[in-house]
């Protein structure tokens, strides 16, 4: 990895951290809030541009499409998260999603920076990855994962604005527990059985508790029409993210099947990672059907989108870090 590429990647990482703090700080002042939000967005944009150039530079240096291991996929994920937020911000004028999006991007940079040096180094491809299908199959999946994360985060903000603070607390707690399991699975020697248990238990109990707590609402917020309007907007933003992510996930799964058929003569082999991608697809298909039928309230759909986030997390990072096997071991480094 060249110094130039390292410099660009570090710039992007630091930009995400800086924009997070500026987004947070913007809530401390009514007077300069507009200016602070503009600065935060500007910093995020600088990071996005730096990361775009960093990814292109890496591709030029490696003389291949720069998406072949976990580290490179994290760069893509952070890029899609930042780009996705900037698009949403432009379309909807939302700002509060910014601190969650920049926190997510910063977490991915941090996670990537802690990976061993072998992941950072440009390494040759294993035979299975020497195919033009790699650049067709993987990018839609990574971008869809980022969009599903943004949908889940919009769900959290919807719960916040709707005054469902107890449900929100359960959802946030669940996400923290799930992320902790993945972090420990990647960087520690804790028995993966315990981590699998932590992930599964929190992912089941958290959303159930969140659903059961939906009846508890902050009365002051309920009366606030502006907050209700904002909640409606985050609901719409979440659906927009899913509406972008779902076709991309579908394309990613289908092109994966086509690649597998081209390489091994089989579209589907029930490999854990591809099975998980199907689970994620089914969960978002259910989300879309629920929304079309309009049987669930926006708050319940927000919790469904948080469940989708957890499944996406499990598909993207969980199956490699929590000790499940499979053909998709390229994202693994242990």
């Amino acid at each position: 990895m060249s110094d130039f590429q390292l410099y660009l990647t570090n710039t992007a990482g630091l930009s995400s951290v800086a924009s997070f703090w500026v987004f947070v700080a913007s809530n401390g002042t009514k007077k300069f809030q507009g200016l602070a939000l503009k600065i935060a967005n500007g910093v995020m944009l600088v990071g996005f541009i730096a990361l775009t150039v960093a990814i292109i530079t890496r591709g030029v240096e490696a003389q291949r499409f720069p998406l072949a291991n976990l580290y490179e996929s994290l760069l893509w994920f952070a890029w899609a998260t930042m780009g996705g937020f900037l698009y949403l911000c432009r379309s909807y004028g939302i700002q509060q999603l910014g601190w969650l999006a920049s926190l997510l991007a910063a977490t991915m940079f941090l996670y990537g920076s802690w990976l061993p040096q072998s992941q950072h180094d440009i390494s040759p491809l294993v035979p299975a990855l020497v195919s033009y299908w790699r650049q067709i199959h993987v990018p839609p999946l990574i971008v869809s994962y980022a969009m599903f994360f943004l949908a889940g985060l919009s769900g959290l903000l919807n719960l916040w604005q709707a005054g469902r603070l107890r449900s929100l607390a359960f959802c946030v707690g669940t996400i923290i527990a799930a992320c902790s399991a993945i972090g420990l699975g990647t960087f520690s020697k804790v028995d993966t059985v315990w981590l699998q248990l932590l992930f599964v238990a929190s992912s089941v109990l958290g959303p159930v508790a969140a659903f059961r707590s939906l009846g508890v609402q902050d009365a002051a917020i309920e009366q606030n029409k502006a907050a209700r309007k904002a909640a409606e907007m985050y609901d719409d933003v979440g659906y927009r993210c899913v509406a972008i992510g779902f076709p991309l996930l579908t394309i990613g799964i289908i092109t994966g099947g086509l690649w597998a058929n081209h390489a091994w003569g089989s579209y589907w082999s029930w490999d854990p990672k591809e099975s998980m991608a199907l689970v994620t697809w089914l969960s978002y298909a259910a989300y879309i059907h629920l929304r079309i039928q309009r049987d669930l309230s926006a708050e319940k759909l927000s919790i469904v989108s948080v469940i989708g986030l957890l499944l996406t997390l499990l598909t993207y990072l969980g199956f490699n870090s929590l000790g499940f096997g499979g053909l998709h071991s390229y994202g693994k480094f242990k």
Partner: protein
Amino acid sequence: MASLLKQDDKSKDLEPEVGSKAASSEEPKKVRAANKDQLSPFASVKLSVFLMCLMALTILIGAGVPQESQGGQEKVFEVFGNQIAEWLVRLGISDIYHSPWFLALTATLTLNMIVVSFQRVFPKLRLLKNTLPFFRGQDILKLPVHHCLTVAKADEQTALIADLSVRLTKMGYKVRAEGTKLMGQYGLVGRLAPSVTHVGLLTLLAGITITSWTGFNGFQPVLLDEKLNFTDSQHSKLWIGSLPKWQVRVDGTRRENYATGQAKQWFSNLSVVDDKGKVLHQGEISVNNPLTYENVDIYQSSWGLAKVAVSFNGHVRQLDLRPMGEKYACFLPLDQDTVLIMSLASEGKSLRVFAKRREWQAPKLISEIQAGKSIKLGDVDVVFEKAIPITGLQYKRDPGLPVTYLAFGIIMIGVLLAAVPHRHVWVALEENKLYLGGTSRKAKVGFERSIDNLVEKLKESFTLQEQEQERVDQGEEANV
């Protein structure tokens, strides 16, 4: 939030396909109720969602528990221990994708999808032909997004409607006019998304059915100079048709490495031969680059070194190699305490000979032998003759492939269409009041903004005044 949901309900009632309900509500409701009664219980979308969740849960369990079809039953016992593994095997969880539960679930979901497609999704296509009604001002005020503007100058009214029609057309709406009323529709193609996706899923079902009934697939590891015989290999059950009579001979197989020694690619030179040994077709395969003969595709799926030929005082022996990480090794016990270990990194590399005695902590390197060379071990003359590679050949015949590919294409088009928002705008000019409103199923905020922008532009061009309506309270600005 309750009021927002109520508003949503209003928009549901005013959805275009049932748009006429705004004008007369009772009759269509009865028709809808009657239609609902005619639907099969399998046409329930709630059932679809429930089955999708069950399917997701089942696959989730299957993804978490090692499957016998992939790692063998021993992997299940290795991971879970005897007691739990026995239960997993007994309950069918260790082979969940072949369990009666999964097959029944797949069958039910398939049935549900077929019934939903024909009873719910496809009939809605007819609604696309329906001409939507024009709304009165009072109906427009019931829409989730609406504006009521007073037109100050009476002579501007005709120009205003004409201007609105042009602006809506420029925004991508297909506009119809009737006197002082307009009706605009945007993204009608987006409404095709469910139908197209369901057509794709049904086509996929057809493709998979053709493949599973008339196709076959299998795997066989084949040594250099040996043949792949379809009948003798591990293959799927064939329902219709027969396996090829011809065989595939491995004339050559090699591994190409990066400078670091890591595998870059595996290659095999294959000859298709008939039962008399006549060569029918030849070609080289590598990972991602199969050979096709008579609609049978042969894939390079794995590669390794299977044996090493070594002669001991002129007696050639083929010793089985075991993969040891990046290397291969064979073990020759010399006596109770001593083992001779021969290790090979890859073809063309030298054979490294180690000795290991019980009291030694690690094996000791005795010598390295180049291919074709010999060394002396005591009284024994050891010659490294050659390494014998093995190539893993996967094969399949898939008559349903064109149908499956077509299905993939249709599904992708369907899900992409789903991203197109379907929007409606109604305009009515009654007396000196301009009513403008609409609905959008997706991207509601974007739609609301586009309508607000339109109104602002109209205000710039005409003498319009906004009527008082429910607005977000001043001082309660949303912090979004």
